[in-house]
């Protein structure tokens, strides 16, 4: 039984394919960063991608919304084939939310303006409606009272939660997280992870690049281990952590869980 078939029996995960990547390759100049990536993500799945630095995990999820261009293979997101056609790229980007390691909030706009910008300009939503939606999501990430401040006035954890709210305001069907807690102080990591957990409970399709193994155990229904641009091992979190198959995975887990 393949991985995808096994997943479809889990409640909350549908048969519908959200992302399908086949035979994807990417080079930076002569350097072969991603090699023959095959990955199918069902709607509602929560996937954690881990691996040593330089293994290509960030590059993989950045290819999904075309922040990086892949050179070979196919990526289909939500039924739209990712090609060099700008129309398709913009369509996919407006359906796929993304959170970055360094938040990347717009420092010249208030928190509320950060959240309403894309709905107003991309979705052509009236300002009032966009603000209502923004306030709804700011309440969801528990910082509605900061709406009129600027990003520079907020703590790192608060900024990352705003970044999550900003993505949610576009009502994305898929969320990508690129090491969302790596730039945060330990005490702030929890508030961001809590937000992500509640997002997972709502059934969002999520792909997270993260080193938070506790989060992976609690939330993920699949953990993918990457090394040297390839998918080395993927499994359900219980199996993955307690019974890793490949040597490379065992070494990696012993290094990050050993201390």
């Amino acid at each position, binding site marked *: 039984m393949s991985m995808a078939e096994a997943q479809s029996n889990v409640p909350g995960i549908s048969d519908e394919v959200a992302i399908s990547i086949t035979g994807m390759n990417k080079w930076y100049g002569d350097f072969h960063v991603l090699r023959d990536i095959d990955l199918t993500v069902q709607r509602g799945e929560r996937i954690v991608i881990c691996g040593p630095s330089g293994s290509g995990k960030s590059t993989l999820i950045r290819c999904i*919304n075309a*922040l990086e261009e892949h050179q070979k293979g196919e990526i289909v997101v939500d039924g739209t084939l990712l090609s060099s056609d*700008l129309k398709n790229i*913009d*369509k996919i*980007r*407006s359906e*796929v*939310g*993304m959170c*970055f390691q*360094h938040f*990347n*909030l*717009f*420092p*010249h706009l208030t928190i509320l303006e950060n959240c309403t*910008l*894309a709905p107003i*300009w*991309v979705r052509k939503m009236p300002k009032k409606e966009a603000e209502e939606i923004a306030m709804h999501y700011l309440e969801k990430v528990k910082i509605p009272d900061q709406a009129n401040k*600027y990003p*520079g*006035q907020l703590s790192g954890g608060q900024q990352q939660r705003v970044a999550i709210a*900003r*993505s949610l305001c*576009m009502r994305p069907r898929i969320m990508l997280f690129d090491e969302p807690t790596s730039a945060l102080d330990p005490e702030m990591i929890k508030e961001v992870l809590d937000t992500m957990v509640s997002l997972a409970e709502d059934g969002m399709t999520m792909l997270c690049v993260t080193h938070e193994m506790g989060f992976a155990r609690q939330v993920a229904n699949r953990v993918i281990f990457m090394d040297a641009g390839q998918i080395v091992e993927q499994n359900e979190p219980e199996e993955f952590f307690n019974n890793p198959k490949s040597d490379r995975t065992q070494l990696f887990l012993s290094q990050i869980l050993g201390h």
Partner: protein
Amino acid sequence: MSDTHANTVAFVRETQIPQSPPPATERGIVKWLRENMFSSVLNSILSLLSIFFIFMLIKDLGPWFWNSTWNAENLAECRELNSGACFAVINERWPQFFFGFYPAEERWRPVLAFLLLFPALAPVLFDKAPRALLVVTLLFPFVAYWLIWGGSIAFPLAVLLGFVLAFVIWKALAKTQPTIALIVSVLVLVLYQLVVGGAGLVENILMGILGNPEDGPALLAFEEVESRNIGGFLLTLILGITSISLALPIGILLALGRQSDLIIIKYICVGFIEFIRGVPLITLLFVANVLLAYFLPPGTTFDLILRVVIMVTAFAAAYLAEVVRGGLAALPRGQYEAADSLGLDYWQAMQLIILPQALKISIPGIVNVFIGLFKDTVLVSIISMYDPLGIVQPILADSDWNGILWELYGFVALFFFIFCYAMSQYSRYLEQKLRTDHR
């Protein structure tokens, strides 16, 4: 029991100490002087030296101002009347300083145009100004042209119609195809202006309705004033304001073009910037004055002020492009990625995210270029245009005022200082207002 307190650590306060003023040496002007002028021996010596130099300056310059003469026929009479400055020359020649050889009875027209400049600039410079004033801003170039150069209103109106047409086309296409809309509307604008607009058809139709001022009385027409009669501070302001307002958008587009992935656009922009920056402004002005006529079809007349404006604009735009590129390069890549990942297209990302931040970073550099440009306009005196410095020459040659220098150049310097200082102050205000990073 009086020694109890000395032996125990425990302590409870029973009465509040009332608030008292700081000692006399820590208050008001004494404190300020001590901290700012006499905080150390070296500082005290420097302060005293500075005070001494300022005193010497006032001692010599003061009487020159106090004993100045404002009414005299010539320099000799000035010297007889009083020992100080001879401002009589400015009193006699100020119309030339302000207007060049603009006809005396028509001078109210440039003055009115200057007054209209304030409501036109207000909504651009200050976001508290009513937005309705933007109408004045948009119409100002056409009204100012009509007021200063005169003639029938048909010409500026025909040109304005071209802009309206281009805007309507852009508006219709912008929703679906922003880049194509920009290119098409610019093409329409250029074609219109070259083929039917200012040059002929539309102007003639309008002239037919209003009457041609050359044939007799006409509606909405002033006496024409030729460009060579426009001079002085009026010329400086025309060149400075027109070039500044054209150079900024062109400079921004050049900077974006230089970063573009479209290889042809990129190299056109790079070529333009590097060529213009590599050539002295005086060379460009000579090209505008002499050589341009050879490149244009025979018989085309091309107003000299317009030619100079084009050259000065190109020069400033090339410098601005590099200043703005510096601002663009200073933005973290994450800002571009965040804008992209939200699904904003190129023009939206530039307009909403990238340029507001890049321009804010570049404000000091941009204003630097503007101030430089404003002062560089005096270079037109070498192609025999009568800017304020050009006006000084015939006065110096006049036997009545032969030998007077300080008053004339000082007056010109004062004018430039007022405008340049205003620009500098505005840029500081803008930086303060846009400071949202809370560092």
